[in-house]
């Protein structure tokens, strides 16, 4: 079995069936003359599903080792959390804390960094972003948000 292409097939089947089922059951598909909102998505979903199935069948027959080089879990988590943190805090905490938290999260992705260096990177980037985006480009944001009671 070819694990990589099994996973690829699974991804395509999930996306294709998900969008396809949603087009059929939640939308009007219509006809070629009067296409409903579901018509074009349904065609695309069928294409994706069929390709997923073809790749899957082929993968079942093949044998292929799959040892991908994957970024360390720590890096994955830190990088995905960083923008989410920004989204959660920019309204409540304000721009400065949000940028600092985001940078801090991203900077901790690399292993073996001294905490002091991580702090220095965070401080430097936060100050830089404040200068560029707030003072330089006039981004309309609150620097310190309402959650601090100011």
């Amino acid at each position, binding site marked *: 079995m070819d694990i*990589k292409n099994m996973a*690829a097939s699974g*991804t395509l089947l999930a996306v294709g069936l998900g969008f396809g089922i949603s087009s059929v059951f939640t939308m009007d598909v219509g006809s070629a003359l009067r296409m409903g909102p*579901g018509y074009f998505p349904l065609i695309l979903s069928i294409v994706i599903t069929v390709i997923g199935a073809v790749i899957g069948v082929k993968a079942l027959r093949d044998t292929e080792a799959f040892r991908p080089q994957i970024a360390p879990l720590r890096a994955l988590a830190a990088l995905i959390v960083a923008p989410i943190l920004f989204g959660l805090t920019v309204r409540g905490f304000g721009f400065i804390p949000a940028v600092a938290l985001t*940078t801090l999260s991203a900077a901790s992705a*690399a292993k073996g*960094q001294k905490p002091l260096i991580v702090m220095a990177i965070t401080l430097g980037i936060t100050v830089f972003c404040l200068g560029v985006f707030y003072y330089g*480009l006039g981004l309309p944001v609150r620097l310190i948000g309402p959650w601090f009671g100011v």
Partner: protein
Amino acid sequence: MMDLIGNLGMGLSAALTPYNILFCFVGTLLGTLVGVLPGIGPTATIAMLLPITLSLSPETSLIMLAGIYYGAQYGGSTTAILINLPGESSSAVTALDGYQMARQGRAGPALAAAALSSFFAGTIATIVVAALAPPLTSIALKFGSPEYFGLMVLGLAASIVLARGSVLKTIAMVSMGLVFGLVGTDINTGAMRFTLGRPELADGLNFVAVAVGLFGIAEILRNLETTMERTAVVKRVAGLWPSRADLKAMIGPAFRGTVLGSALGVLPGGGAILASFASYALEKKISKTPERFGNGAIEGVAGPEAANNAGAQTSFIPMLTLGVPANPVMALMIGAMIIQGIVPGPQVATEQPVLFWGLIASMWIGNLLLVILNLPLIGLWVKLLTVPYTVLFPAILAFASIGVYSVNSNTFDLYVMAAFGIFGYALSKLDFEPAPMLLGFVLGPLLEEHLRRAMTISHGDISVFFTRPISAGLLTVAVIVLIVAFLPNIARRRNEVFVEED
């Protein structure tokens, strides 16, 4: 001919205002910067800067964004030559001979060959764009929905052929991009599609968030797989100016590279990369001493560099004349136009002549600025390569988060960005290419709109696509292109062409 000169004159006078020169400079500087730095490319940079361009006039913002794009082509070759790490995929070929030249102590002439032949190519390609754009525009004005549909299908087909890896997987990627592009309110009926009940998705997935996730976050993750140790072989570059013999060896390749690049750049779907490979292959084939290639042949730097720069420039042609993007960067440029309230398409040339010609003229000015930026300031760029990646990527992530948020002041877009970051990374591990997906994402709503309109006009008769000569022609070419991609012979060649990119 007189028209051409008059139009270019108008463009020059628009591009030469101090304000526009300043932003052209900022763009090329930023472009060089991201080109030099591996791990961040022009796509992510332009995506992040899109929201900021709102405060600029339309021509200024497009001039700056264009500067980032071709600036990155220059900067990418600097890294390729000095540390054998192409900053941009299109400068992968430059690394072959450029790095060898640097190791032999000829980094100066290699950099000069790259910059000068790029400038030469940029100058010619600007004229090509100026000469070809108006006639193509007048053809495009006659286009109806079936023709637009055919054209977009051809563009997508070309992006499939030019992508790396399995053709089947790339078709799936394009389809996935198209369907993601349809998320949101259906403009014809007002029905909600795939919004999962989230009101934030009513306007669709935010393009900037998707692009930054796919190209920014996923790219950083790929770079963090291994601890990156970058060491420049050359700490100081001395003896920049090439010798007379070098110059003579450069002219032919630069000229042939320009022709190849200009022609291939117009093709939708990543012509610049293909052009540099094609130019390298051509120079090696016609050289009397092919064995020197790979061991520091200056022709192997001059040709591909000219080709990729010319290709980068002529890839503006489909975007400017038809409103159809040839690559993800052009898709972003279209996004920039839409943000400014300009409807992309053939009417831009007649309704916004200052914007249209100003952008074209600014390309030449930008190329001149790039030569000035790259040759005397090379020491600065060398120094920049010593900035550790551990400082760089948190900064990129902070910029990206701020940039994505500032498009609509919508926090939901940040979750979309994170989701597409992890999704894009997973896809790349499964050998799916993200670029065709982004192209599909942009074209999705347009493609559907024109398909619907064409079917309504023809009363549901699908033959409308094959009875109108232009759309029939475009679709036939698209089918041929796809068949060619599936031929085993070509498929193997395709892998050979792209194999050196890794």
